[in-house]
């Protein structure tokens, strides 16, 4: 892959030899390296919930090794490899726009904002594969309520972290960054809509969107924006990245729907990761009882 010519670095950036040597000593004395330990840090006091009982979990290795996170490369194995050094501390999330109390939350504050729950959700990618993941987090509504949306707020716009220096592969993704997503306010306030900080009992791995991501289980996976830094309540439907890139293929709503094909492939079936043959895709990814009322009277072919 391409990289900056190392010889183009100014001498001012060269680490002095004594610092370099002492850092080696420090690192050696700290084995096993704490950074590695932090990557698999357990989350404590998680409340189990009844969501997804009876679903067979997708193995941890697949959940954390088969990802779409285009800032870190477009191959499925790229994010696990390239997101290792993403700095997730310090990290803040700005909640602003049509709210009475705009606020910047520190990530450690977010982690204590509401009781953490484990929820086992089906996760359906627009590409035709799916997983079952034990996410950890709390309803997005809890965070939004803290900012007190005003009566103008009808939509919620989300924005991902973007730093080309930490994400050099992003230049080749073919979509613009920072990544943007959006929901209608009632979708955002729905109890199934989850602000996720972990999975499989541990802090969210970087490749899965650390330190904070969205999961909307009845929508295609790309609606679940990763590494969120900004949440803005707005009056009008906000622009979203994939919709801008290709409006015919990726609608604003992007509810899982076996009847509405992606122009280039059918959405009628999906391959559950770990299974050889495909299974039928369910309307709203099987969460119709909970969410169908949100779209009553709407033509789902038109608002795909």
């Amino acid at each position, binding site marked *: 892959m391409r990289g900056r010519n190392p010889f183009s670095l100014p001498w001012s950036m060269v680490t002095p030899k004594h610092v370099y040597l002492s850092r080696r000593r420090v690192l050696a004395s700290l084995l096993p390296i704490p950074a590695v330990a932090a990557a698999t840090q357990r989350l404590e006091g998680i409340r189990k919930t009844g969501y997804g009982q009876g679903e067979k979990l*997708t*193995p941890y*290795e*697949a959940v954390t*090794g*088969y990802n779409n996170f*285009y800032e870190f490369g*477009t191959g*499925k*194995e790229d994010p696990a490899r390239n997101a290792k050094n993403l700095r997730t501390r310090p990290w803040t999330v700005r909640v602003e726009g049509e709210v009475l109390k705009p606020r910047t939350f520190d990530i450690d504050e977010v982690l204590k904002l509401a009781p953490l729950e484990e929820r086992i959700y089906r996760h359906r990618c627009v*590409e035709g*594969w799916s997983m079952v993941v034990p996410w950890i987090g709390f309803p997005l509504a809890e965070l939004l309520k803290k900012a007190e949306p005003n009566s103008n707020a009808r939509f919620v716009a989300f924005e991902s972290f973007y730093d080309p220096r930490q994400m050099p592969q992003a230049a*080749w*993704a*073919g*979509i613009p960054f920072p990544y943007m997503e959006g929901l209608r306010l009632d979708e955002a306030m729905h109890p199934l809509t989850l602000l996720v900080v972990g999975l499989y009992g541990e802090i969210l791995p970087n490749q899965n969107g650390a330190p904070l991501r969205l999961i909307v289980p009845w929508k295609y996976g790309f609606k679940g924006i990763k590494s969120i830094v900004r949440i803005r309540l707005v009056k009008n439907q906000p622009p979203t990245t994939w919709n801008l*890139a*290709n409006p015919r293929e990726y609608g604003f709503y992007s509810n899982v729907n076996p009847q509405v*094909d992606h*122009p*280039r*492939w*059918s959405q*009628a079936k999906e*391959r559950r*990761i*770990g299974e*050889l*043959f*495909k299974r039928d895709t369910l309307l709203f990814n099987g969460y119709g009882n909970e969410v169908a009322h949100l779209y009553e009277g709407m033509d789902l072919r038109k608002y795909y």
Partner: protein
Amino acid sequence: MGMAVLRKTLPQMLVSSAFLAPLFLLLYGFFRDSLGPNPVEKITHETGQWTLRLLLATLAVTPLRRCAGMPWLIRFRRTLGLLAFFYGLLHLLTYVWLDQFFDWKAMGRDILKRRFITAGMMSFLAMVPLALTSTRGWIVRLGGKGWQRLHRLVYLAAAAGVVHFWWLVKSDIREPALYGAVLALLMLARLKKKGRQAPRAPVSTSGSG
């Protein structure tokens, strides 16, 4: 097999074995369950990529033979072409079996509706007559000129293959663009040569018995 025949076909056999290695790695990985979380996707991508690579390798024979002074390369053209067809067939079989599980109706819809599948199918269908008429007997039967005309379908197969890949990717077009660039280069080399050169050598020198 006589020693003489063996000596004559050994280079082709070596080339075939080398290019069949990716298939054996895939089979090994499949049964060891080491192809990653989505083995069917992996098999689909690998067989598709090898089809394209081998098609381009086949198309590289003529320009390299002429420009780079490697006339002996012609001995491998048929081998490479048949390998491309073989990987294309595996790619199609993966789709028919592992992806669609013989759902003929769904596949029919796919071929008509999804343009990347239409292009892929076109590429494969263009290769079928080439594979069938790859023997010396067919060269004689069709006559050098006729055989050559028929085998120009390889350009369609390669172009449709690149388009198939291009239309499939979501946004990162680097890989299909690379294949497209190589194909364009190989075609350009042909156009340039054609103007200056005397008529080609009879095609019956291709293949190797």
